[in-house]
């Protein structure tokens, strides 16, 4: 800016020629509700994330035989051995369709994430709860949440703010890096800070435009009004992000700007996905540590898992259906390869989160990361005992490292517990047969 414009002078300029008087301290203008949340001495925030892999597991090779702490590690779980004390495993929780069709590789994850079996393939019954958590805890960071997929397809995302409004995924680590650590990034640990008047200007323009069209919703039918409401919410979030950029960020001890990752071709072969999974994990870990977001959703593979071994003809999803069960082994060896690769990737993801020291522990101790799939046994799309895990201690609110057997209870008990731990003020979750008021108290620190 040419003349080293001060914030005060800029705002006064905005008033020029107008009859409107502003009588309040101008500095408050750009403060946000949670602006003090990060001031030094404030408690370390709790973060939330999901990590998804497609096409489930083999119940005989996955479910621990013991419940509670120090559960045993069957072949498909042995990959998380280093994280056993940080990961609780949930098995035996069921999904009830209540008359809805079992839409393959779709009904399962949305039952867990929205509390209701979808009635159609085009729309689910409500928002997914990650967006409610983001609404609750994401207001003071640049990004309300960040969606990422290692599959190369931005449509691969299970985060929905409404029945048909999907938050698309980042698929390129380079693009994600640019978005988080690019030009708009403010290093929280820099000693000096000068608010950029250009940012103020952008914020002013956006809020003026948003105000101009506020009345538009009155002319719309119900569903279009929801869509326009989403648009306005999106504008407001960008404004809030700009507002945050005008404040000196609170220092974040563990924040170190990562290296710009080399461009990776997003690909469906399992080696590429594993590589991208690690890159994304590192970037997300730093985004959390640097207070750029509190919430993320990550897909390792999509629910119709398109993972392949390089040079082979069929995808993970295809082999789950086409490969016979090996009579001697008792499972499908090719399909199982991908299950094990997925668990390896989950462990690698946690490695990266755990690598960030924070307070007396690590970033993982201040997080709650829900891992889930879309089905239990993909060959028949079974919706009973879809595998779920929770990693992290949520800042001391969770006991970790337990195996919890659901004994046929609805999957929504896990969702209810997660939402309550993350601070949502709800006492029930789910629809019809999946409505529950019973959180899983075993894992709660009381």
């Amino acid at each position, binding site marked *: 800016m040419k003349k080293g414009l001060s914030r005060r002078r800029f705002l006064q300029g905005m008033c020029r020629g107008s009859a409107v008087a502003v009588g309040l301290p101008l500095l408050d203008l750009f403060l*946000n509700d949670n602006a003090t949340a990060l001031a030094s001495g404030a408690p370390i925030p709790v973060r939330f994330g999901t990590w998804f892999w497609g096409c489930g597991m083999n119940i005989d090779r996955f479910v621990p035989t013991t419940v509670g702490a120090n559960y045993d590690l069957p072949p498909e779980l042995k990959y998380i051995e280093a994280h056993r004390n940080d990961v609780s495993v949930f098995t035996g929780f069921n999904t009830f369709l209540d008359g809805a069709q079992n839409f393959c590789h779709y009904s399962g994850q949305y039952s867990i994430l929205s509390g209701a079996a979808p009635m159609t393939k085009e729309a689910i019954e409500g928002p997914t709860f990650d967006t409610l958590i983001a609404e609750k805890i994401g207001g003071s960071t640049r990004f309300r949440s960040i969606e990422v997929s290692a599959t190369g397809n931005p449509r691969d995302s299970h985060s929905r703010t409404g029945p048909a409004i999907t938050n698309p995924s980042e698929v390129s680590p380079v693009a994600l890096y640019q978005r988080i650590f690019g030009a708009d990034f403010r290093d929280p640990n820099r000693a000096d800070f000068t608010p950029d008047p250009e940012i103020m200007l952008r914020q002013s323009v956006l809020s003026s435009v948003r105000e101009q069209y506020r009345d538009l919703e009155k002319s719309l039918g119900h569903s279009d009004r929801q869509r326009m409401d989403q648009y306005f919410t999106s504008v407001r979030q960008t404004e809030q992000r700009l507002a945050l950029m005008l404040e000196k960020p609170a220092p974040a001890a563990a924040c170190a700007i990562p290296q710009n990752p080399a461009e990776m071709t997003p690909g469906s072969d399992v080696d590429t996905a594993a590589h991208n999974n690690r890159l994304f994990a590192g970037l997300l870990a730093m985004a959390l540590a640097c207070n750029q977001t509190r919430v993320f959703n990550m897909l390792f593979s999509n629910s119709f898992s398109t993972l392949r071994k390089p040079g082979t*003809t069929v995808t993970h999803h295809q082999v789950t259906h086409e490969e*016979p069960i090996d009579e001697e082994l008792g499972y499908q060896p090719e399909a199982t390869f991908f299950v094990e690769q997925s668990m390896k990737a989950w462990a690698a993801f946690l490695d990266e989160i755990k690598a960030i020291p924070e307070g007396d522990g690590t970033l993982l101790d201040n997080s709650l990361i829900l891992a889930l799939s879309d089905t239990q046994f993909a060959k028949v799309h079974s919706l009973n005992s879809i595998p779920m895990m929770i990693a992290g201690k949520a800042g001391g609110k969770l006991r970790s490292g337990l195996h919890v057997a659901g004994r046929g209870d609805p999957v929504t008990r896990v969702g209810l517990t997660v939402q309550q731990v993350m601070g949502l003020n709800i006492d029930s979750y789910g629809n019809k047969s999946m409505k529950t008021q019973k959180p899983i108290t075993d894992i709660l620190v009381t």
Partner: protein
Amino acid sequence: MHRPGFYLPLVTLLGAMAAVLSAPLLAAPDESAAIPQVRRLNEQQYRNSVADILGEHIDIKGRFEPELRTHGLLALGSSVVSVTPFGFEQFDTIGRSVAQQYVEAVKKSPADYCDSPAAAGITSQCAADLLDRLGGQLFRRPLSDSERALYSGILTEVGGQKDDVYEGLKAGLSGMLVAPPFLFRIERVEADPDRAGAMRLDSYAKAQRLSYFLWNTTPDAQLLDAAAKGDLHTRSGLKKQVNRLLASPRLEAGVRALFDDMLRFDEFDKLAKDPAVFPRFNFKAAADSREETLRTIVDHLLVENADYRELFTTRKTFLTSSLGLIYRVPVANPGGWSTYVFPPGDNPKAGDRAGLLTRVSFLALHSHPGRSSATLRGKAVRELILCQEVPTPPANVDFSVVQDTDNPQFKTARERVLAHQTDAACASCHRITDPIGLAMENFDGSGVFRAMENGVAIDSSGVLDGREYEDAVGLGAAVAAHPDTPACLVRRVFEAGSGRTVERDESEWMKGLNRRFARSGYSLPALLRLVATSDQFHAPSQSVQAKAPAADSLAVALPHPPTGEEK
């Protein structure tokens, strides 16, 4: 936090004050849907609109939110999607970059943008006029008074602050580029003077429907002018504009968008073939095959104005060297595109090909990454070409036998797929997809011809709804003769253009439309004309008609002063 009294920047307050002055127009307590339809611009429409309005030199770099397909069309999904936080972040970034580039161009040669520029550049009056004009184009209607106050307020305030009129122009334009009337195609209705109590689309809504339907871009100056004069409400005025749009070379963009959507070519973006299995199929071949089919469609339907049904039997196509490798035929122009006519008769190396179903785009898109799929191809013919619905498979199925290509008992896809039919639950659906797909088994998952699979000759015979054939060429003829083939196109054209599905009580009208399409010799331009000039195309959705309030109460509900008469 929301503290409107002082959080809002003052330009907003200026705008709000202007709004208060025109309070009677803005008092809109009515809950009825005065805007029955809102469609989000898709990526191509955004690009085309920006190029048309702000200049083709503008480079649009950014990521657009994915689209959504409903009832078979992305065009219908555009009436459902919104802008997510991620999407808005992208629109904001792209919009500021577009505005920056535009302003640089103005700075470079102000005389191109202003009649009498000052020696130092444009005057603030010129900038205000320019912004007003751009607004009218970007929003596809004149700005309302409050909008004019807002954007010229931004221009003045920011320009004054920075002591630079170009900065003001950039800020105003950036604001327009993220505003709802640009990002969404907002269609307003008004009382229909010819039918008491009924509603009609206002003339600007009609103009944008026509323009995005036929050209896939924003209305041009002539069309906006016709809207301003109210011409689109008259039979002759509408016809004149439709004929003009149809006669333009820009029609090609609209037709390409239509078929790209109908044939689900967006799926090329995520199409992956295993290079170890299909060495001839790469990124270039995929892009070329999409273009090959679109060129064929444009050539056949627009240049030659030929029978739509013959698209499924035509032997004429367009090739590049990557495609020549897959088709195993010589290519006249190895450095670019050349016309090619597949010779009739069986060729042991290249096979026999006629029609869209034997082209790489169709064969490769509807296959697995590492193998062909009779089921996927059959399903695609039913759903994409015939507009029939194939039920989703039941959840609990054992496909092991069907897909084990190493099973010595079942060497070909036909033998494997026939195993479906031993299971009643499978048979009910596979009977409607597989016989179609098996006719294309002579082409592998990348579209390369093969006579044998696992050492056994492939039997490509079959039957489509009563019509028998020997191979894929015969299947093409059967599809061309199928009554659902042209009917499906009619439905897709109407739905893509109007942004809504055909209503139940419009079935008689659709039948008539089909008859007239047949009488035209199945000419696409004729069909486009019939649709674009029909009342149904320009009708607001039925739900609005049903609960339309009395004309005078609605006039109050429309916060949208400019009409043709006022302009």
